[in-house]
């Protein structure tokens, strides 16, 4: 062992962190090298001086002062905080809901629509109301009035004339039992023009904009 190697081991030797082989080698070097021996002695005495330093005693009122100041001080916010929202499951669920809605919505729309029935499903025949006669408008109940209809549901026993019965039937909402059938027709842009359809029917072409 040379002097440089020996002096590198001073710290580990002082901390008692060297192996037995290293210690023996160092001792052998000290026996042969007085300079390194003196260096290690000085090193050891310097560090021993540190251990002889008296402990600095804390101020007697340190606990009370620390408590008093701590009471006046608000705690710092928790840096760890609440658990973050797991965005991946939330996003996946939202995507699934969106896909499911997309798949189901056409079925829901066709089910509610009175005009487009799915093949194989027959619609119960709806009794078409007859045209009311002028006498109906005077308060006589319609021959086609069905129990549970709007006018009937509002009628009370003992009341002879239902006030709603006088309202023209066309003012009621018939969206559920009226079919809209679009005849094929040709719409042209431009000014309205008279169009002859078939032989005797004549009308004015209209442009409908939604």
């Amino acid at each position, binding site marked *: 062992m040379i002097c440089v190697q020996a002096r590198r081991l001073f710290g580990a030797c002082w901390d008692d962190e060297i192996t037995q082989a290293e210690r023996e080698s160092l001792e052998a070097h000290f026996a042969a090298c007085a300079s390194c021996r003196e260096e290690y002695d000085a090193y050891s005495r*310097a560090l021993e001086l*540190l251990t002889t330093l008296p402990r600095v005693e804390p101020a007697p009122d340190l606990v009370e002062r620390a408590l008093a100041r701590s009471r006046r001080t608000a*705690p710092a916010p928790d840096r760890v905080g609440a658990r973050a929202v797991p965005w991946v499951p939330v996003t996946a669920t939202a995507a699934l809901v969106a896909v499911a809605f997309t798949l189901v919505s056409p079925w829901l729309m066709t089910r509610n629509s009175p005009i487009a029935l799915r093949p194989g499903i027959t619609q119960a025949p709806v009794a078409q109301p007859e045209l009311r006669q002028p006498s109906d408008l005077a308060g006589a109940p319609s021959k086609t009035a069905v129990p549970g209809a709007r006018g009937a549901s509002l009628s009370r026993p003992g009341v002879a004339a239902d006030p709603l019965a006088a309202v023209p039937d066309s003012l009621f909402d018939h969206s559920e039992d009226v079919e809209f059938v679009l005849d094929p027709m040709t719409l042209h842009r431009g000014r309205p023009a008279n169009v002859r359809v078939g032989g005797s029917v004549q009308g004015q072409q209209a442009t409908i904009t939604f």
Partner: protein
Amino acid sequence: MARVAVDDERAFAELVRRFQGRVTNLISRVLNDRECADDLAQEVFVRVFVHRRNYRHGAKLSTWVFTIAANLAKNEIRRRVRRRNWFSLDALQELLSDSAIQLADPTEGREVTLEREQLQGAVGRAIATVPEKYRLALVLRDIEGLAYEEIATVLGIPGGTVRSRINRARSMLKRKLQPLLGRAGTS
């Protein structure tokens, strides 16, 4: 610490009593300033209280408290360097140099009666002249007796760096104390 985190005042007082000696000693040895050590020790415990909910359960409590103390001591050293630098650039260079400041004569300007007290005062001043980054590691290891791994956690540096800093600090201290070693050996 779990009780301190839920605002248990008695637990906090117990924590202060448990660590006040080591914290005051650490700061006092690093700064070589008893009065300032008392104030900074109080500040350490206030910060422990303020940040009590940020303490990671499972971490060693003493390491956490020492980390706060070491950071406050470092801040104080830097504040003093800045203040000294305001008046004298030479003073800053002297402070940062590990060899520029020579150990003062322990009897010079001081009326001390016991040689032991002189020696201790001289050792304290010698420690205070070691550059900050070496000084903290030295005090934590050779005065407070922390393990190298704990010092690495407290200072936030790798274990190898801790060892090299401590070795360097010890060598510096030996050089500074060389004139006193004969006296120390005879006393």
